[in-house]
């Protein structure tokens, strides 16, 4: 049983999604998804334990030995990502019942859960597999499921958003396949570890560089790196609340993992950062994202959309960490994958609860909502403090690492850039806080009150997590810095 854990990680949600599709009632499908999500979480905890105790796990799918068969390869980095994805999935499921119940027509609910489980399966698959083509398959599984989920949004514009995402996502996937194909032609292998081993003897650097370029652009489209982020605000804004929570907390994070994996484990930090100007390009794009997207966020009327732009900015922090390519910087980037996931989950859950009560998240309709839904909006405030990077919250931990990394690289101006961009976060969060607490409630808000415990609990869990992991960082920053050391091994 223990040896089959890596397979179970993707098989459980895959099978569950199949059953879900045949369910007649939304509640039954929800219950099934709940069980599957929690089972997946248990599996990922066991995997992490195993990795921490006895090193990386290699699992030959179907007994076909790598490099010819598909290998599932789990080290500290992706065990961490698996835990993140499955953890988010498990914690937010109780929220889904009422939220999905009001936002999606009852006949479509089982399909929605089917798509959710497929998406979960795809994301976990990308994180766990050690095979470049298998990654593509899971990438498509998760993407197709995501398009469908986004399209189920109540707003008519959800269809357009899904279509836009479909086009851009497909371009990204195509780029990814081209990159993988080029890698295959120069190395004759699809196994990531095997490719990495053969790259030293590859003479055709032009093919290699081209492959790196295609992979980088393809994955960057998926992770919404500025300026390839245009799909994200619409998709997040118009998708059903529950889908937004799940996607914001996990989908882009898995794509970032993929980028880190290719940069550091496959191509190697030496090639990517020392022979090519990847670091410089990534650095500039990250800083532009941190500023541009934050400024755009300040002017959004729809708060979901505002937070979507904030995500683009926060992804900038993570890619900045990658671009710094030193131990502190990369640790900061990796830990921010986790930290940003929990704060954005808290944010979007709080908004989901508000939408559940008053049917809107437009800033004009939020006047006085804090006085009517104090616990929910306190959750929003705590998530806001995290995103600003107040000490004692997770955001501070990420920022500390990134700033220390920038200072070590001698780029002291970056330290100030990081701080200025978090000040922009004060403005866009503060704007909502002002309206929610210091304006008098009117209209639908008058009748609003905090949602039932099943919806409140996930919000509180993520808020507690964003404070807890801001103080006790042994799990998050500890693993992140170990993973960073491992990944940077190639530089020394």
């Amino acid at each position, binding site marked *: 049983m223990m040896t089959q854990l890596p397979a179970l990680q993707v098989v459980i949600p895959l099978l569950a999604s199949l059953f879900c599709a045949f369910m007649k009632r939304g509640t039954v499908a929800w219950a099934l998804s709940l069980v599957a999500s929690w089972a997946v979480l248990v599996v990922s905890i066991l995997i992490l334990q195993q990795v921490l105790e006895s090193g990386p796990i290699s699992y030959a799918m179907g007994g076909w030995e790598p490099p010819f068969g598909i290998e599932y390869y789990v080290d500290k980095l992706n065990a961490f990502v698996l835990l993140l994805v499955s953890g988010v999935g498990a914690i937010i499921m109780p929220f889904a019942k009422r939220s999905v119940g009001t936002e999606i027509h009852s006949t479509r609910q089982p399909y929605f859960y089917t798509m959710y489980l497929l998406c979960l399966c795809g994301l976990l698959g990308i994180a766990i597999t050690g095979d470049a083509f298998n990654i593509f398959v899971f990438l498509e599984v998760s993407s197709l499921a995501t398009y469908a989920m986004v399209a189920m949004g109540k707003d008519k514009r959800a269809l357009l958003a899904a279509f836009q995402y479909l086009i851009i996502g497909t371009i990204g996937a195509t780029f990814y396949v081209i990159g993988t194909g080029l890698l295959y032609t120069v190395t004759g292998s699809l196994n990531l570890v095997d490719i990495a081993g053969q790259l030293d003897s590859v003479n055709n650097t032009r093919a290699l560089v081209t492959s790196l370029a295609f992979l980088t652009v393809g994955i960057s489209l998926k992770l919404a790196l500025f300026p390839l982020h245009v799909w994200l605000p619409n998709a997040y804004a118009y998708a059903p609340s529950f889908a937004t929570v799940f996607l914001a907390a996990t989908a882009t994070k898995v794509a970032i993992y993929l980028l880190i994996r290719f940069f550091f484990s496959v191509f190697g930090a030496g090639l990517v950062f020392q022979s090519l100007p990847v670091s410089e390009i990534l650095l500039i794009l990250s800083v532009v994202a941190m500023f541009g997207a934050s400024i755009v966020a300040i002017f959004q009327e729809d708060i979901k959309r505002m937070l979507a732009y904030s995500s683009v900015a926060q992804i900038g922090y993570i890619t900045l960490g990658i671009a710094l390519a030193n131990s502190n910087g990369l640790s900061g980037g990796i830990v921010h994958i986790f930290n940003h996931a929990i704060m954005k989950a808290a944010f979007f859950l709080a908004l989901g609860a508000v939408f559940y009560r008053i049917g809107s998240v437009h800033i004009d309709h939020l006047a006085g909502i804090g006085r009517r839904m104090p616990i929910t909006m306190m959750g929003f405030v705590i998530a806001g403090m995290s995103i600003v990077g107040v*000490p004692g919250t997770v955001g501070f931990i990420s920022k500390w690492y990134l*700033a*220390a990394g920038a200072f070590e690289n001698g780029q002291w101006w970056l*330290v100030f850039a990081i701080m200025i961009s978090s000040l922009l976060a*004060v403005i866009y969060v503060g704007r909502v806080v*002002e309206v929610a607490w*210091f304006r008098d409630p009117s209209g639908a808000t008058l009748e609003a009150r905090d949602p039932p415990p099943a919806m409140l609990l996930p919000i509180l869990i993520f808020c507690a997590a964003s404070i807890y992991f801001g*103080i006790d960082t042994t799990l998050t920053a500890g693993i992140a810095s170990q993973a960073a050391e491992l990944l940077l091994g190639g530089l020394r």
Partner: protein
Amino acid sequence: MSGSDLLLISIFLPLLATLLIPMFDKWQNIREAVTLTAAVLLLVTVVSIFAKFTAGETIETSSFEVLPGLPLAFDVEPLGMLFALVASVLWIVNSLYSIGYMRSHDEPRQTPFYMCFAVALSSTMGIAFASNLFTLFLFYEILTLSTYPLVAHKADEKAINGGRIYLIMLLGTSMLLLLPAIIITAVIAGTLDFAPGGILAGKVDDTVLALLLALYAFGIGKAAVMPVHFWLPAAMVAPTPVSALLHAVAVVKAGVFTVIKVVVYVFGIENLTKTGASDWLVFVAAFSLITASIVALTRDNLKARLAYSTVSQLAYVVLGAALASSAAIVGSGLQIVMHAAGKITLFFCAGAIMVATHKTEISEMVGIGRRMPITMGAFLIGSLSIIGLPPLGGVWSKWWLGVGAIDAGHEWIVAVLMISSLLSAAYLLPIVAWGFLMSPPESKPGDRVEVTEAPLACVVSICITAGLCVMLFFGANWVESKLATMDFGIQSGATALIEGERHGR
């Protein structure tokens, strides 16, 4: 109970009150009783810490590493001990005053008001007892965030704008300047622990040292060194108890306290004297001191005038830190205590006048002394203490700052102190003079003016703090003796010098 338990209690006790207060939302009297009980218990805790501390016990908590090199830890040293004592004593008086003020003013949303107040006190304790820069910074930021709702409490356009300026200025300076300074310090010094003699000594060259000091001096926005003082007048839209305890005592004192801590335990005063890295700050502080007094003269709104007076009085503390002589640091420490007692009295009076007569502008307060003799009497006492006249506490801090300036070779500072005292007399005393000597415009000359004081709770609080100003004149020696035990990390010769000065006076 061990000392470290008491330290943790002093921080968690107000937080406990924060959780209890909303449970009694419907029962006002019980809700206020919770605040008062917490305030009294906090004072008991702080006093027992003090008893242990004077008995010579070292009191420190075990540290908890948030990140490698970033520990969360508390300990007790003389300056922090005094700050905690001042804040916890005044919290009781202020709670009493708040009850009178908030009820007779019929303020809405009192439950969140008392909750935020308790969080602010908890973070003040955290700042006072922080044993390293990271812990201090953590509570510094919580203090900003917990006081923001208090500033914007009224929730009208003006209050919201005031809150904006407050939040952006304080968070902005701390994130843009203070945090980078802390990060740079951590990378260069390898530690953030407060240590006698400083942790930066001998690790950086003079230019970097001066630049770092600039990041700290302006990054600690709560110290309100010009030009980062704008948040303080903006914060005056808050209810008066907030202005009194937080914007005359806890928040601003947390700022200057941090400045002194950084100067003494991060830079080290010997290091600063040798390199001259803080000389520029002497000029900035002196400028701030005089300019703010002049601006205060031009303000007709009483709270605004008091706010600028605070900016000027805070500059005394920063000045003492910048002089970097041990006598000047003692003067700074004294100024924290003396100004706290004096300014809270003045704010209490301003609030009492507002409650009793709804007047906020000084020009409307002609003859107010006849209507509110107790309040204006206390106002006179507070004013004299701020100006620095005997027999009131304020005189001693000015004295020590003068001695410290001469020690540091900046004799001209004595003249600056004189001018500033004259200016503060000019902006404070006319209020009292017009109040007592002229008759109110609405009554005919010769008529008996009816006495209408503020609610009893307010008047009692005013008398207590005014009494404190007088007591501090006689008790100053005691405060000095506590401050003189601060470990400056310099040769015993200099410490003996302070001792000698103290006894020689």
